[in-house]
């Protein structure tokens, strides 16, 4: 018998909020999950404690994002509560009231990037990132690993922590050539000061439990043990499930439970997952039991037949290769970093971002100062087809004197007459957010 752990559960199904009446992100989404959690009596178990979510503030969001024009404009109460739920989960863990916690909240957030012009992939603001920056602000700087187990590439979290060497973002997802958002390949490996702390593990469609757990054991767990995070966060999407209507994977509730048992996250935050009737009730019960250290071996979808969902030999060898490659890449990160930087002082990155939920296109140029003393000051120039044009500066955690000086001066120098509607400064150490 395993040792039972005290698990905090923040359950907020937002039964009165939807993107639109028939959208996958609608009122009904966690209805059957609630039924299953209530019927199983999980909230009566001594080591599972339910907490009411708090409501995140706009300054909690401003610690993470540059919202255009501001945080109020791009969020609803539901986003503030979902982020607040993640924050509550973190507080309960950090205050040692519980051993770990699961924020079973909606809407999701892992597609929300550093700059937010609108909603993409059903996400407006990034719940995990808001939580991480909350932890760092209130409990001191921590090394944190985010393991994104949603079927879609966690491109928002990746974007936010692209230049942060103290946040390891590992996303395991269905190959981007076959699924939204179409990214998440090995080449996406982090910014120059943080190369290797962004890792992407694309898996072939129809990967089943065996494949996911292989990658977990052979790549993710060894990498985590080398990175030595203070906290592990599971960005817990549930759309790898064999019954999910918008993806093509074959993961089961049992597989999700085993994954969470082995990964042993300090905090899990719900992301996507839209098989609301056939997957979510069972996957969530599995995750809760696994986190609480309880027997989950009886958790099973009523219609699950493992033999029907066996992955092919070809997929198995593809997955095995994938796990080897990603571990190899991680091992060579320092060497690759030197080669990438050469004697550059700054690095520039250009990209286009499409906000599918809101139909907005953004063009973005990011400049990061190459720095071996801190994450490096980041300057963002972004323009959307709604006509918004912004300039934003992030002075990173534990900023060195030079990066701070350059960041402050870039903010001071930028003028509205240069064509920007808004100019922002985000100063992590001083918890400052300035706008002009």
């Amino acid at each position, binding site marked *: 018998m395993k040792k039972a752990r005290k698990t905090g559960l923040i359950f907020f199904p937002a039964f009165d909020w939807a993107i639109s009446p028939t959208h996958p992100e609608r009122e009904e989404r966690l209805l059957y999950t609630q039924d299953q959690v209530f019927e199983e009596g999980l909230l009566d178990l001594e080591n599972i404690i339910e907490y009411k*979510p708090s409501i995140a503030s706009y300054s909690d969001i401003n610690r993470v994002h540059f919202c255009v024009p501001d945080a109020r404009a791009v969020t609803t109460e539901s986003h503030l509560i979902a982020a607040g739920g993640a924050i509550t989960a973190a507080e309960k863990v950090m205050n040692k009231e519980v051993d770990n916690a699961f924020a079973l909240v909606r809407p999701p957030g892992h597609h929300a990037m550093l700059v937010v012009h609108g909603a993409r992939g059903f996400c407006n603001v990034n719940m995990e990132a808001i939580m991480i920056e909350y932890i760092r602000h209130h409990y001191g700087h921590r090394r944190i690993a985010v393991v994104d187990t949603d079927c879609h590439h966690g491109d928002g979290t990746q974007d936010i922590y692209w230049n942060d060497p103290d946040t390891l973002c590992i996303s395991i997802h269905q190959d981007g050539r076959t699924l939204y958002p179409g990214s998440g390949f090995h080449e996406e490996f982090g910014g120059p000061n943080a190369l290797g702390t962004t890792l992407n593990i694309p898996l072939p469609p129809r990967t089943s439990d065996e494949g996911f757990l292989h990658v977990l054991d052979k790549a993710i767990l060894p990498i985590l043990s080398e990175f030595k995070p203070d906290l592990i966060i599971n960005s817990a999407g549930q759309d790898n499930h064999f019954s999910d209507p918008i993806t093509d994977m074959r993961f089961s509730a049992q597989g999700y439970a085993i994954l969470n048992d082995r990964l042993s996250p300090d905090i899990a935050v719900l992301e996507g997952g839209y098989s609301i009737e056939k997957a979510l009730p069972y996957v969530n019960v599995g995750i809760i039991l696994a986190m609480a250290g309880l027997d989950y071996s009886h958790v099973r979808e009523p219609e699950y037949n493992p033999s029907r969902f066996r992955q092919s030999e070809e997929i198995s060898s593809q997955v095995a290769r994938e796990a080897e490659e990603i571990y190899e890449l991680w091992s060579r990160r320092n060497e690759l970093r030197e080669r990438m930087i050469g004697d550059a002082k700054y690095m520039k990155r250009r990209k286009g971002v499409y906000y599918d939920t809101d139909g907005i296109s953004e063009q973005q140029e990011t400049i990061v100062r190459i720095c071996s003393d801190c994450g490096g000051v980041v300057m963002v120039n972004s323009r959307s087809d709604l006509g918004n044009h912004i300039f934003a500066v992030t002075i990173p955690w534990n900023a060195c004197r030079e990066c701070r000086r350059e960041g402050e001066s870039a903010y001071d120098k930028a003028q509205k007459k240069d064509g920007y509607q808004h100019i922002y400064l985000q100063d992590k150490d001083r918890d400052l957010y300035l706008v002009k």
Partner: protein
Amino acid sequence: MILGIDVGGTHTDAVLIESGRIRKTAKVTTSPDRIVDSLSGIAQDLLKGESLEKIQRIVLSTTLSTNAIVQNKVDPVGLLVISGPGLSPSHFEIGGNTRFLSGYVNHRGIETAPIDPAEVTRFHEEFLRKGLKHVGIVGKFSTRNPNQELQVEKSIHNGLDHVSLGHRMSGHLNFPRRVATTYLNEAVWERYSSFVRQVISFFQGLGLSVPVYILKADGGTFEIQHSVEFPVYTILSGPAASIMGILSMTPDNKNDAIALDIGGTTTDIAVFADGVPLLEAFGVTMENHKTLIRGLRSKPVGIGGDSMVYVKDGQILIGPERKGPAAAFDGPCPTPTDAMIFLGLTDIGNRSKAEKAVQSIAEIMGITVQEAAEIIFENTCEKIALHVHSVIEEINNQPVYTIHELLEGKKISPKILYIIGGPAKPMSTRLGQLLGCPVCVPSYYEVANAIGTALARTTAELTILADTEQGTMTIGEEGIQEKLPSRFTREDAIETGRRMLRERALRLGARAEDLEIEVIEDQEFNMVRDFYMTGKNIRVKLQVKPGLIAGFKTGELS
């Protein structure tokens, strides 16, 4: 006239109410092993010299089922559990005769695995061989579709004395609680039925043929014949009796309020929201059994007038143990009651014995008797106040699941404090100060339980799940699953619910004038499959809320 009797653990209270006035009261010590005797004795006393034809109604509250469970005087129960996938079955084993059946009904009430009749027969035979006469049948999600429980029941009814079905216990989801509730219902069934037979024959013997009601944990009543099927509903009716008693004696009770029943060993804390007593969120807890039994929310804390006072590490400590009555009543150790007697807050008992007891504490502490008594009294009040604060905080922090409730949800903020129980009067002023509320000690507080019992109306609850995609409507408590008419809406569900709840309550003994029905849950979800709207999932829950019978306004007996 109405006769109300509350057979409590220590005392039996009785009251005779005539035309809205208390005509007589009585209080005797309960003989726990002879509850019917306690009951008939006090009834005979109270009715002596009364014209019995004036009696219109008799209501009883009894600890019979509670005691049976606490003292483990229960019958062995064979449990047939259809647990399906999920939590490990080891969580559902109670009483040593739990057997697990194949079969499963999912969260929408759709059968996903069938019952195996051969398996059922095998366990049935095993139960008969073992001499088990009482069986509970409980399926996961049986409130969403009772058919598997009904199917099993049909094939095992031979040779058993009684069978309880899980879906009849409550419309709420919570399988482990459903198992425990069904088990307890069956475990006390025999003993309770025999009690009911004796009570009925006693009143018939007196020549009384008026309706007899039994008080439930939710502060409502049901007619005694109907109570036989659900003896488990009668557990923990004592705290409910006292809360209903307070309700009947407090005028203008429309605000948030706290009610304290300060006894010898414990203080029960209850809360009113806008004048209505709060219910437990899921159900009451009894001897470590978490159940689905609707019950008034009442938190017992281990401090009362007879709590033991002692000194440890230079600190004066109070309770939670009770060694006996107060020293002033020849008890073995100093108690808060002794401190209150010494301080002149009350003039009961033997003052010099009280003083001697408090002095023993003063000597250890090296302070005067006066100081010791003040500290004991103050600590007692502070301890109770602290528990009250934590009860309120717990209620206000209860999780909610909609944005509306999270942002606009009601917060309890008590405007008045009601106190009953032995030390109610001496403690009232200080407790009122500590809790920042005006205080009210109702006039007949010694027999509050009997009064509450006498005046409680019949309550009932009903849960409707309409699934228009499947075209079915399920009413768990009634064991009904039927086809839906086309174009069924939420308004239809509410209307159907009102009608069926009315029928249900009348069947349980309610009078038409007492049927104050309210909708307590009302949700409708679009069901979308593959991006198309396929139906609606409608969930409605209604209740006849706890309250006083018609003709008795809140505070009438103040």
